[in-house]
């Protein structure tokens, strides 16, 4: 595997971060430790040309200055994140001159990454349709504006003219559609309603003829619909496993707003993305995500039948799901912890519950609370003489 290593130094809360990306890479750590900054820099390094091109197309000018560019790209208030004499970036082992990069006149190039931002719920307006790029303020993060615009354009395609957006027979594996119906949509369908030139997404329940507009969706459904359509963007209804030139999928806070059952479905979809040959990098605050990484590592080391992975998701064994499971076992997964005190990253990929380092044994703090709960209860039970 190529040396896909990103090093950031003295950028915002990051003092020194080094992440070597695997097929699947998970970034964990408390809020505001730099995980999103690192993911957004990863995207910038992969897709500077298309990013500059989109900004220019919408008349946004950063006067070839780093600070102005960062305010447009990362969002308002990020001026000063980059310290001219201290901050540095190295990608694939070579230093990157950010001043030179933002002075570049590049505006083209095939996109190598697809970024699903944490604030994806903002991509939908309260009327239940995707907001165009220009609908946002200039200081809103580029990743949100771009995501929203991509989905808006996709919904102007035949997909948006179809009545049922979910389920669609040619979109997603049938096993994934079944999981989505079971755990997220239940008896509802996702449909487009057209009234003259205007469109909106509705959740419909065919048997009761119920039609729910966006404002009546559950918080989980509001979060999931933009995510689902992002997956549609990535998984075209053709025999091609991937979309165009895209190789990297970057997902911020995969679990945002989702019930644990919905997170399970998303993790199965992540395995599908890996099977399709995408490299997936995500940030997360969910122990479920690390459960999967831990399971893959241990099952691989035990040399088990790949079908065991399907048991994790309660998915039937079919030729297609077995292939997906086999691929998952062959992939390299890496986990990095962002230390809020030191401003550094630590490779905790082994996720060994018996590790001497608390950050690895406690999975970067994600299982720390549960550990303390178990500890306090065990002590109380032992001291009370109860249940004896």
């Amino acid at each position, binding site marked *: 595997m190529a040396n896909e290593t990103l090093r950031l130094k003295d950028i915002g809360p990051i003092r020194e971060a080094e992440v070597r990306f695997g097929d699947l890479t998970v970034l964990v750590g408390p809020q505001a430790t730099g995980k999103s900054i690192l993911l957004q820099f990863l995207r910038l390094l992969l897709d500077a040309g298309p990013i500059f091109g989109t900004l220019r197309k919408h008349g946004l000018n950063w006067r070839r200055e780093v600070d102005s560019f960062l305010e447009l790209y990362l969002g308002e208030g990020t001026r000063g994140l980059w310290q001219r004499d201290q901050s540095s970036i190295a990608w694939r082992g070579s230093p990157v001159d950010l001043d030179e990069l933002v002075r570049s006149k590049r505006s083209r190039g095939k996109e190598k990454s697809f970024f699903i931002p944490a604030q994806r719920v903002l991509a939908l307006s309260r009327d239940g349709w995707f907001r165009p790029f220009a609908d946002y303020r200039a200081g809103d993060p580029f990743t949100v504006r771009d995501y929203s615009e991509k989905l808006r354009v996709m919904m102007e395609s035949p997909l948006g003219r179809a009545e049922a957006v979910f389920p669609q027979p040619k979109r997603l594996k049938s096993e994934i559609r079944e999981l989505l119906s079971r755990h997220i949509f239940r008896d509802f369908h996702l449909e487009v309603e057209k009234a003259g030139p205007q469109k909106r997404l509705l959740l419909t329940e065919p048997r009761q003829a119920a039609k729910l507009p966006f404002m009546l969706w559950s918080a989980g459904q509001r979060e999931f619909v933009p995510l689902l359509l992002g997956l549609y963007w990535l998984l075209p209804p053709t025999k091609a496993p991937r979309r165009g030139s895209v190789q990297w999928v970057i997902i911020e806070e995969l679990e945002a707003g989702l019930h644990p059952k919905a997170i399970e479905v998303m993790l199965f979809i992540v395995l599908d993305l890996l099977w399709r040959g995408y490299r997936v990098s995500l940030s997360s605050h969910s*122990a479920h995500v690390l*459960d999967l990484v*831990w399971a893959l590592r*241990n099952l691989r080391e035990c040399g088990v039948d790949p079908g065991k992975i399907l048991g994790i998701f309660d998915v039937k064994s079919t030729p297609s799901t077995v292939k997906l499971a086999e691929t998952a076992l062959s992939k390299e997964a890496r986990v990095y912890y962002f230390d809020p005190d030191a401003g550094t990253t630590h490779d905790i990929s082994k*996720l*060994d*519950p*018996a590790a*001497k380092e608390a950050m690895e*044994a*406690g*999975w970067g703090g994600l*299982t*720390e*609370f*549960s*550990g303390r*709960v*178990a*500890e306090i*209860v*065990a*002590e*109380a*039970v*032992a*001291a009370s003489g*109860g*249940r*004896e």
Partner: protein
Amino acid sequence: MSFRDAVENTPATRSHFREGLGAIRRRDRRRLRCSHTRRLSGSVNLERALPPGECNEPRWDYGIGIASSPGDALIWVEVHPASSTGNVDEVLRKLGWLKTWMRGDAPAPWQLPRRFVWLATGRVAFRSGSPHMYRVAQKGLLFRAGHLDLDRF
């Protein structure tokens, strides 16, 4: 009551009191950390005290006395793998045996403040927050992987 009194007032363990960590097998002793050894008020090896001929049940490994306010506290330690969820049942069976034994044949140790610890060896097959861990906690059992820091008691 002191730890020593508790051990010596129990017929099966009467002659098995050892100073410090003397009752702990060497391979297990290196898993125990204690920087204030003066707090150690002794140890007992139950497997030695209750050999298989006398007890056919799965026995608990060790009792360790720790000086605590106002008297001694007793830390019951079982050194056992945690490489499969089946190990949870094994250790809980041992815990059940220990509590029954204390209620019947060893009432003296029962009177001391006590903690029960599963000190896991080797690879750990479940993480904190898993249902197995909660099952263990609900029985009053603390789980430690690799090493046990006696200073924390």
